[in-house]
């Protein structure tokens, strides 16, 4: 119980810390990789909450996803190395206000609600994975399939959008198929 609380707190802090770094560094690589480590910390948070499959999945998926994010950052930012020290933000006050109020409202809800009794134990990882599989391919199959089809559609759409309009010679839409 206390160990769990400790790990949840540690990984939660790590996720928040790296999340802050994302918007505070001027190097785009650092920004993208800070987001990656924030996501990894979230994955570890899942692990700390005994949700092993989702945690490992999150850790795995984000590594590739954020690496792709990194190359796009380098492509699309004017100053990827952050050497110029330029400011890439606008409407700061409004954004801070919105961010803080969103967080405050959510925290207030979290603190003020009566969550009722919390479950003490969950089944082990193996049984969880099994049950999740049964859920996915049983009751929730339609939703899962829909998600799959949506991904396929998005992949095709993204590829179609990103290849050059004039000459369709460039066949590799691989940057968009992830």
């Amino acid at each position, binding site marked *: *119980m206390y160990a*769990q*609380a400790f790990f949840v707190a540690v990984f939660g802090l790590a*996720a*928040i810390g790296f*999340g802050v770094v*994302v*918007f505070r560094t001027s190097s785009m690589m650092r*920004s993208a990789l800070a*987001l990656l480590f*924030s996501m990894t910390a*979230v994955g570890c*948070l899942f692990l700390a*909450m*005994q*949700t092993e499959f*989702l945690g490992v999945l*999150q850790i795995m*998926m984000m590594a590739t*996803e954020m690496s*792709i*994010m990194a190359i*796009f950052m380098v492509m*699309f930012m004017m100053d990827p190395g952050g050497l110029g020290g330029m400011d*890439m*933000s*606008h*409407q700061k006050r409004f*954004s801070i206000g*919105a*961010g803080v109020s*969103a*967080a405050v409202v*959510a*925290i207030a809800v*979290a*603190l003020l609600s009566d*969550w*009722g*009794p*919390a*479950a003490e*134990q*969950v089944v082990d990882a193996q049984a969880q994975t099994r049950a*999740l599989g049964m*859920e*996915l391919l049983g009751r*929730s199959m339609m*939703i899962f399939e829909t*998600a799959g089809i*949506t*991904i396929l559609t*998005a992949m095709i759409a*993204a*590829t179609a*959008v*990103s290849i*050059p309009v004039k000459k369709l010679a460039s066949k590799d839409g691989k940057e*968009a*198929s992830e």
Partner: protein
Amino acid sequence: MTMILILALVTGAILFGIGVYGALSQTNLVMIMMGVELMLAGAMVNLVAFWRFLHPEAYSGQMFVLVVMTVMALEMAVGFGVAIARFRAKGSVEMEEAEDLKG
């Protein structure tokens, strides 16, 4: 146990708040996407916490997290597709320069 639940929820809320700040304050499309990713991550933390501490017997909770992960991947795919197309056409993915998107 409720204490851990609240801890996780607060974490999720702060992540969401950082995401909101990022999505609103950044001028570059890719950075905005990062903000959105952080918001989704905050949501996921909450979902997992709810599943773990409130309804560990209902696996649709976990399934929902999977769907959110799918949405993250989708957002990346479509976002970068749009970014490439826009960059190709306009030479910029800066929001300050996307005045043509204004109504």
